[in-house]
């Protein structure tokens, strides 16, 4: 039973436009969320995180939004660049158990 879901396996966006990647979770005990970016043949690299006490966190072109009532988070990339093309994983942490649950990933393709 997947506790973190990314329902869009792929997303294609034009360079300069906004990329919106979505993630849903089922466990209301999750209290920390992260987005990782993964290039082929490399391990995931940390991108941005958000604590459950916040609803928004911004870092340059990347913004993560958290809607706890809907158990939904999203990553916005503005403006999108070709170098952003990668697989993006969302992950959720239940602090007490120190175990991360990952979604299945969304492959973003930013076209020049």
């Amino acid at each position, binding site marked *: 039973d997947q506790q973190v879901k990314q329902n869009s396996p792929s997303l294609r966006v034009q360079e300069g436009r906004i990329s919106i990647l979505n993630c849903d979770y089922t466990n209301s005990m999750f209290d*920390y969320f992260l987005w*990782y970016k993964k290039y082929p043949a490399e*391990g*995931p690299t940390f991108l941005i995180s958000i604590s459950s006490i916040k609803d928004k966190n911004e870092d340059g072109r990347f913004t993560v939004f958290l809607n706890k009532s809907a158990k939904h988070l999203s990553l916005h990339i503005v403006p999108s660049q070709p170098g952003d093309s990668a697989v993006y*994983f969302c992950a959720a942490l239940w602090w007490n158990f120190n*175990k*991360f649950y*990952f979604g299945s990933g969304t492959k973003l393709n930013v076209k020049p």
Partner: protein
Amino acid sequence: GAGVSQSPRYKVAKRGQDVALRCDPISGHVSLFWYQQALGQGPEFLTYFQNEAQLDKSGLPSDRFFAERPEGSVSTLKIQRTQQEDSAVYLCASSRQATGETQYFGPGTRLLVL
């Protein structure tokens, strides 16, 4: 080193063979995690160490899987009598503190069992 390293990067094993996968975490990181990532899926938790103590091994799929971190730094994931369903990328991650910290991943070991 600057990041988490794993070796080998690729491993081909015959079914029934034992394999050992190594992880060198970031120096000084307390926590170390192993994940299994099947094709087209996200990483799935296998086990977690805090220093040399294995605090959670609930994700290990069978008793053929064994992990250790005897001195609280390098860790080895061992798979005995490999099966085809063990084919996956095995990722190691480390984090600076004991709980709730961002995890930094190694490049993974891609295991193919024939």
